[in-house]
C-alpha cells in the first residue's frame, strides 16, 4: 500500500546555506551528544508504555498502569475511564496523556473539568507528570498555550467557544463526564462539536438512572458504536439500568470503557473508625427544642408545615444561631403576618435568647483539644459555622471556613491555610467535587445531613487514595431528638459509616430512590407516633440492606471487564 511520507526540507536548505557561507559549524562533542540523546528518545515499539520511565517520582498502581496500556493499545486512545470513586482516574488520564505526548502524537490538549477542580488538575499535571498545563484565565491562553484547563461553563460561552472550535486539538479530557448524559443540553452539544482525535471521558457513575445515558456518553466518544439513537431506543428504551446486564451491550460498552472496582484492585484501604457521641441538651437548649417542636407556622396540616417544624428541630440540634436565622427569614417572608403568628415567633425568639450554651460546641472543643491534630467539622448550617468559628476563636483555636460558594482561588487558599497552619476547618458543604483533604484524618459531623450521599461525600473528602491513617469519624447527635432517630434508626443500621467509598452510591441508584431526603422527611414528619416512624424506618433500612446483599452477590458473580 501507498503510505504518505512527510519530510521537511528545512534542514537541507540551511545546510546548503552553511556550505555557501562556510559555517558556522557545530561542535563535534555536541554533535555526538545530540545523536546519543536522540537515540535514547527513540521509541522502538508501537506497544508498551513509555510514560513510567519518564516519571520516576510517580508510582502508579497496577490497575492504573493496566488501564493506561489498554487505552493506548486496545482502545486507540478513546475511552471512558469509569473507575469507582477514589481509584485515581486522574492518574490514569495523566499517564495516557503523557504517553501520547512522549510519542509525539499529541501536542495541543484541552482539559474540561468542573470549576472547583481546575487548579487541582493543573497542580497534578505539572507536579506529577511534568505536563505544562495552564489554567485558562485570559482568552489568549487558548491559542498560545498547548495544554489548557478550563471549566465547560467557561469554554462553551462566547467568545471562548469560537476560539476553541478554531483550535486543532489532539487530545481532549473531560472530567465528571456524567454531566453530559443528557444530549439535549448545551454542554453536550458543545462537546459533540469538538474535534476529538484522542479523548478521555472520566466519570465514576457512567449510568445513574437510564440506559440512554450510556448511549449518549459513548456516542460522544465514538458515534455509532452503540448504533444510532433510533435503533438503540427501540431495543433498550425503558429497560432501566438493568439493561447493562444484556451481554451484547455489556461487551460493546466494555470495548470503550474501563471500570475498575475497589474490590478488584487489591489496594489496602485505611479503616474507618466511627464513634457516635450522644450529647445531652442543657435545660435552656431543651426548652428551645421543645418550643420549636410544638411550633406549627401554618396550621393547615400540609406537608410544608411539618417540613418547617422539622427544619427548626434539626437546627435546634445544631445551634440557636441556626434557629434564629430561620425564624428571622420566616418573619420577613410574610407581609402581613397574623397577630397570633407574630406572638408565637416572639415566644421562640425569647427562647433563643434564653439559650445559654451550646453543648455540642463544648463537646467539640473538648474533642479538638484531645485530638490535638487537624480536624474537619461539617455542619449543615452557615449560622452554626459562623458561631463555631467565633466560639473556637474565643477558646484560642483558630479555624478557617469552607463553603461551596467560595470562588476557586479562595477555596485553594483555605485548603492551603488548613494544610499548613490552621488546626480546624469548618465546612458547610461537602460538594461532590470539592477539595481533597487526605492530609487530615479526623472528621466531626456536628450535625447530620439526611441524605446519606451527602454524608458519604463528606467522608470521601478525607477517606481516599493517599490517606495513610485510619480515618476517625465522630458523629454528634443530641439525645431524644430527630437527630438521634436518624442516626440510630437509619445510619447505624445500614452500617453507613463503615462502607467503603462509592458502594453506597451504587446501592442507592439501584434502589431508584431519587430523593432520600424527601422520603425521610416524610417518614419522620408525617408519622403520627414514634412506633409508626420506627416501623417505616425499619422498612427503609431493610430495603437498603437487601440491595446491599444483592450487590455483594453480583460482585462475586461478575465477570467484569477489569
Amino acid at each position, binding site marked *: 500500500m501507498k503510505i504518505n*511520507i512527510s519530510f521537511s526540507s528545512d534542514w537541507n536548505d540551511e545546510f546548503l546555506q552553511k556550505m555557501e557561507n562556510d559555517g558556522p559549524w*557545530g561542535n563535534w562533542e555536541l554533535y555526538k551528544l545530540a545523536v546519543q540523546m536522540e537515540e535514547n528518545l527513540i521509541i522502538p515499539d508501537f506497544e508498551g508504555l513509555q510514560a513510567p520511565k519518564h516519571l520516576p517520582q510517580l508510582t502508579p498502581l497496577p490497575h492504573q498502569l493496566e488501564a493506561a496500556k489498554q487505552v493506548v493499545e486496545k482502545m486507540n486512545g478513546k475511552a471512558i475511564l469509569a473507575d469507582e470513586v477514589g481509584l485515581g482516574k486522574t492518574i490514569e488520564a495523566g499517564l495516557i496523556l503523557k504517553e501520547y505526548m512522549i510519542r509525539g502524537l499529541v501536542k495541543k490538549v484541552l482539559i474540561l473539568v468542573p470549576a472547583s477542580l481546575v487548579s487541582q488538575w493543573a497542580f497534578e499535571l505539572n507536579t506529577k507528570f511534568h505536563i505544562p498545563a495552564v489554567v485558562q484565565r485570559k482568552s489568549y491562553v487558548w491559542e498560545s498555550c498547548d495544554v489548557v484547563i478550563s471549566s465547560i461553563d467557561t469554554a462553551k460561552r462566547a467568545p471562548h467557544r469560537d476560539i476553541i472550535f478554531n483550535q486543532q486539538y489532539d487530545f481532549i479530557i473531560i472530567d465528571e463526564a456524567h454531566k453530559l448524559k443528557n444530549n439535549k443540553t448545551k454542554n453536550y452539544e458543545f462537546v459533540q462539536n469538538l474535534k476529538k482525535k484522542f479523548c478521555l471521558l472520566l466519570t465514576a457513575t457512567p449510568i445513574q438512572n437510564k440506559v440512554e445515558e450510556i448511549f449518549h456518553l459513548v456516542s460522544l466518544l465514538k458515534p455509532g458504536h452503540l448504533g444510532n439513537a433510533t435503533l438503540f431506543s427501540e431495543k433498550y428504551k425503558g429497560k432501566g439500568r438493568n439493561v447493562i446486564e444484556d451481554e451484547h451491550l455489556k461487551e460493546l460498552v466494555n470495548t470503550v470503557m474501563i471500570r475498575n472496582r475497589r474490590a478488584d484492585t487489591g489496594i489496602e484501604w485505611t479503616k474507618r473508625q466511627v464513634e457516635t457521641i450522644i450529647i445531652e441538651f442543657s435545660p435552656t437548649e431543651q426548652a428551645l427544642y421543645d418550643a420549636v417542636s410544638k411550633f406549627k407556622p401554618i396550621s393547615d396540616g400540609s406537608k410544608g408545615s411539618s417540613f418547617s417544624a422539622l427544619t427548626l428541630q434539626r437546627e435546634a440540634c445544631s445551634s440557636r444561631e441556626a434557629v434564629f436565622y430561620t425564624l428571622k427569614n420566616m418573619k420577613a417572608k410574610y407581609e402581613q403576618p397574623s397577630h397570633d403568628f407574630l406572638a408565637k415567633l416572639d415566644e421562640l425568639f425569647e427562647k433563643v435568647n434564653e439559650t445559654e450554651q451550646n453543648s455540642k460546641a463544648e463537646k467539640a472543643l473538648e474533642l479538638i483539644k484531645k485530638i490535638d491534630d487537624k480536624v474537619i467539622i461539617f455542619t449543615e448550617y452557615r449560622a452554626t459555622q459562623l458561631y463555631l468559628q467565633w466560639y473556637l476563636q474565643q477558646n484560642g483555636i483558630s479555624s478557617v471556613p469552607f463553603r461551596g460558594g467560595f470562588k476557586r482561588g479562595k477555596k485553594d487558599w483555605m485548603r492551603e491555610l488548613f494544610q499548613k497552619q490552621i488546626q480546624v476547618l469548618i465546612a458547610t458543604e461537602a460538594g461532590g467535587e470539592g477539595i481533597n483533604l487526605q492530609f487530615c484524618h479526623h472528621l466531626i459531623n456536628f450535625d447530620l445531613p439526611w441524605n446519606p450521599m451527602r454524608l458519604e461525600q463528606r467522608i470521601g473528602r478525607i477517606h481516599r487514595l493517599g490517606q495513610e491513617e485510619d480515618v476517625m469519624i465522630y458523629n454528634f447527635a443530641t439525645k431524644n431528638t430527630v437527630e438521634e432517630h436518624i442516626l440510630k434508626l437509619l445510619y447505624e443500621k445500614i452500617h453507613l459509616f463503615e462502607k467503603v467509598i462509592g458502594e453506597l452510591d451504587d446501592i442507592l441508584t439501584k434502589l431508584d430512590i431519587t430523593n432520600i431526603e424527601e422520603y425521610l422527611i416524610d417518614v419522620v414528619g408525617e408519622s403520627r407516633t414514634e412506633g409508626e416512624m420506627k416501623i417505616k424506618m425499619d422498612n427503609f433500612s431493610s430495603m437498603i440492606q437487601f440491595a446491599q446483599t444483592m450487590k455483594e452477590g453480583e460482585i462475586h458473580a461478575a465477570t467484569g471487564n477489569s
Partner: protein
Amino acid sequence: MQQQEIHDFLITFFEANDCEVLENAPSHITVQLTIEMDKELMNRPFYWHYLEKTSGIPNPAQITFITDPEQAPPNMKGERIHFGSPRLHQIIESTKRLAGYTRLFEDTLPSNGRHNPLFPWLTLNVKISYQCDRKKDTFMSVGLNLISGEIMEGFHNRVLPVKVTPKIPDYSFTLSPLIMPKSGLARLDTYIRTSFENDDHSWAEEAMERWQNDLNLLEHFYKDMDEKSESYFTEKQALQAQYEPNILISIINGGLFYLSDRALG
C-alpha cells in the same frame, strides 16, 4: 536511560559549551553558566534586556543539578534532573539546535612525508517514524562518499572512533567532491526512502482497517439525518487525524566529514 548517563551527558554538554563545572560529585554537579548559556537555558529575557539597556554587570546564573537524590547531601539545594524532567529535555533540544550541522576533518599524521588526501563524506542522522494512532521510531545513519558515490549505513558509529578536528590539519588536503552536496542530499533522501519500502507495513494496513471500522459506525450513526450536521464532518476529520498512516523522516543532524581512505576501516 540511567542517571549516570545523564550525569555524564550534563558534564559533556556544559564543558562543550565553555561553562565551568564548579563541582562534580557523584550525586550532583554545579556549573557556572556563560552569558550565552544563561540566555539559552534560564528563560529570563527581561533580565538580559534590562542589563543590556543599563550596561550593568552581567551575572550569569550558577545551577546545581542533583542526579542522584539518595546520595546527595540532605540540605542540597538544586534541581532534580531525570529522564523525562523538562530541564533535561530542554538541554537535549538545545544540544540539537547547537549541533545540527557540522564539518570536520580527520586529524591524521602525514605518512611517508606525503600529503594526505581527505575524501568528502556527506552524512545524515535521521529518525524515521511510523505514525498512525500509534507511533514507533527507528534511527538511521547514512553517509555518502561524494567522490565514489558509495553509500554507507551505520555511518555515525563508524566515524565515532575517528579523531577529528574542525580545522584542516597540516599536510592534509581535501579532494573536491564530484557529486555536489545538493544532489548528494537527494541521493541520500532516495536511499532512505527505499530503505523502508520493503519493511513490514501491516501496522498501516491495520490502522486503515480501524479507520474504516470507525467510519462505518459514524455513517451508521448519522444515517437517519438527511442533511449531515457539522459534527458529522468534524468527526470524520478527527478520524483521519487519528488513524491515517504516515511515515515521517526527521533529520537529527548531519554534515560533511573529510576522511582519509583508511579512516572507516
